[in-house]
Each structure stands twice: as structure tokens, then as C-alpha cells.
């Protein structure tokens, strides 16, 4: 069964249409890039899949279910903005996640933190922006989820941190789970992706595997994106 299935998904904010009839299917074991310029609907789509927003019409099904407690148990979401409380310590976050999610693998998270030399005693306040983003990614990737939704995970971090984040995604690859990564930094990410979905004004402008796109157009996804979205 598909992990994510969107059917004629529409979302309007008042008269502003954010998603205009999205149809897509994501199978298990895929790493998918959700690509589009600012305001194309990436975050709206992700937020509907997490259950944070409700669609105006149509539906998004996760493992065949509408967003709710059952889907939240199998969806691991990395929001664009951090939601970690700065007074908390890393250890607080670990127990927080352990309480909230039965699929949270504490050993894995501790291992990943140790590899980065982050102490569990560190207060989040004392961490740099890049380190904070890494901690958040570790928390999200240490869950044994079915669907990972990562909203702009590589925006605003330095290239070394970016490499770390991409390697973490590869290292945690699970053939039974899928990863959706929204970004407009395509160049850095395209060799990690199986498939790309281009969003344009709330509609799917293109859906293809990365290698098919390169084969058919003789250019990188990044170059093709620039062509499709030329201003």
C-alpha cells in the first residue's frame, strides 16, 4: 500500500488558493524531494499530511488513513521553524520524545548525539543555530516511523551541517519507510533523492525520478528547475 496518497487535494486561505487539486502517491522506500519556489504550497501540503491543517476539499491518506492519532504515530515531522524550548536540556527533549512516541529509538538518538559530541546536559539555549537544527533532526530521524516529513531541513545551515543532515537521511534509510524533503536548495540534495515533485502555484508541475529527468533532459534537476521556474 502507498504510504502517502493525495487525492484532488485543495486548500484555500480565504480567497487565496494554496493547493489546487494535488494528486500524488508515494510508495515505501522512496526519498522524495518536494520542490518549488516560496509560496508554491510545499509547507501547506506537508502540514495537511501531519494533520496540522485540514484540506478545503479532497483528501490526504497516510497508510490508507486520514490524518489523526493513528497516522501521527507513524509520521515523523520536522517543521521549518524550531519548536524546542530554549530552557530545556537535550536530555529533556529525549525523554519528551520517548514519552510522546512509542517508536522513538532512544539508543539511536543518543548514539547520534554522541557522534556529534553533543552532551545531553547541554541546554538548548547554549547551542548554535546549526547544532540546534541537528538536534531536532536527530530527534525526528531516531523515530522508527513510516513517513518522515522534513520541511526545509537544510535551509539556513552551513555546508558541513548540510552534508551531515543528508548523510543522516541516507544512513537511516529504511526500505519500508519514505522520506519527503521540501526544499528549494535542490543542487545540494538531488543525488540523495529518488523522485522529485515540482510544485507551482499549488499544482504539480512535474513528477519524475531524478535519473529519468536527467536522462530525458540532459541536465540536473537543479538546472531544469531553474528553467521551469524562470522569473
Amino acid at each position, binding site marked *: 500500500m502507498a504510504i502517502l496518497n493525495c487525492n484532488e487535494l485543495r486548500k484555500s486561505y480565504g480567497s487565496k488558493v494554496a493547493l489546487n487539486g494535488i494528486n500524488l502517491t508515494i510508495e515505501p522506500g522512496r526519498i522524495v524531494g518536494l520542490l518549488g519556489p516560496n509560496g508554491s504550497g510545499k509547507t501547506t501540503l506537508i502540514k495537511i499530511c501531519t494533520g496540522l491543517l485540514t484540506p478545503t476539499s479532497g483528501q490526504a491518506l497516510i497508510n490508507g488513513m486520514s490524518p489523526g492519532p493513528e497516522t501521527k504515530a507513524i509520521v515523523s515531522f520536522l517543521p521549518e521553524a524550531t519548536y524546542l524550548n530554549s530552557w530545556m536540556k537535550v536530555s529533556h527533549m529525549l525523554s519528551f520524545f520517548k514519552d510522546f512516541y512509542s517508536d522513538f529509538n532512544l539508543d539511536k538518538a543518543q548514539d547520534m548525539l554522541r557522534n556529534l559530541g553533543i552532551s545531553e546536559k547541554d541546554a538548548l539555549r547554549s547551542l548554535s543555530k546549526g547544532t540546534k537544527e541537528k538536534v531536532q533532526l536527530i530527534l525526528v530521524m531516531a523515530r522508527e516511523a513510516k513517513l518522515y516529513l522534513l520541511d526545509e531541513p537544510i535551509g539556513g545551515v552551513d555546508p558541513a551541517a548540510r552534508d551531515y543532515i543528508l548523510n543522516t537521511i541516507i544512513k537511516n534509510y529504511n526500505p519500508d519507510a519514505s522520506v519527503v524533503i521540501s526544499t528549494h536548495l535542490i543542487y545540494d540534495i538531488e*543525488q540523495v533523492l529518488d523522485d522529485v515533485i515540482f510544485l507551482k502555484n499549488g499544482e504539480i508541475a512535474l513528477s519524475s525520478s531524478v*535519473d529519468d529527468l536527467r536522462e530525458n533532459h540532459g541536465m540536473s534537476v537543479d538546472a531544469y528547475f531553474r528553467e521551469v521556474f524562470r522569473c
Partner: protein
Amino acid sequence: MTWRFEPDRPIYIQLQEQLKLAIVSGQYPPGGKLPAVRDLAEDASVNPNTVQRALAELEREMLVYAQRTSGRFVTEESEMIEKIKTEMALKLVDEFVSKMAAIGYSKDETNAMLTKIEEVEERGDTQL
């Protein structure tokens, strides 16, 4: 191993080529075990499914074989590897000759140039 990917061609083909080069050059010797998909993916920073596809292509070319439980190995048939090596060499020579032709060298002139370079190298000079 250092991996390098050009932006305008499928990644699995480039992976396949670079793995082939590693086999032909003996970095992965005949009968030797190849790293696991996951390790290759991490090392090259590419998607594991792409690595899987590149390896499947090498299997199809009989350069690599899979053993059900213990992973993938380089073929033990060295003639097979020699054959691929010759194919690669021919392709390189072909490219070289056509690049020389593009700057106006005939095949004979190219040959003469190669001989000359060899002589110069033997003498230890740097001037042609």
C-alpha cells in the same frame, strides 16, 4: 574512494562507471567482496536505491555477482575484467583521437606526437 558526479547525466550510470573503474584498476580485486549498498550509499552520499540500480547493472554485465546472504562480489573471471578494460581503453583512445582531430591532427600526426612524447620522457627532458 572519491566520487564525482556530473550534473547532466543519470547518477546511477556514473556510479556504475566509477565502480567499473575500481574493478578494472584492481581496487576491488577479482573475487573480492564489494561494500554493502548502505555503505556505498553513505560513502558516495547518494540514494541507496541508486546504488542498488548501479549494482544491478553491473550484475547484468556479469562483472559482479550476488550471493544470497553474503553480499556482492567481483567476478572471478579475469578475462571478463580484461574485456571491460579493453572496452574502456578503446573508448578513451577514441575520445583522444577525435579531440586531436578537432584541433587539426591527423591520425599519423597524433601517432608521431605520442612517439615524440615517449622519447622526451625517456630522455627526462621537459621540452618537446
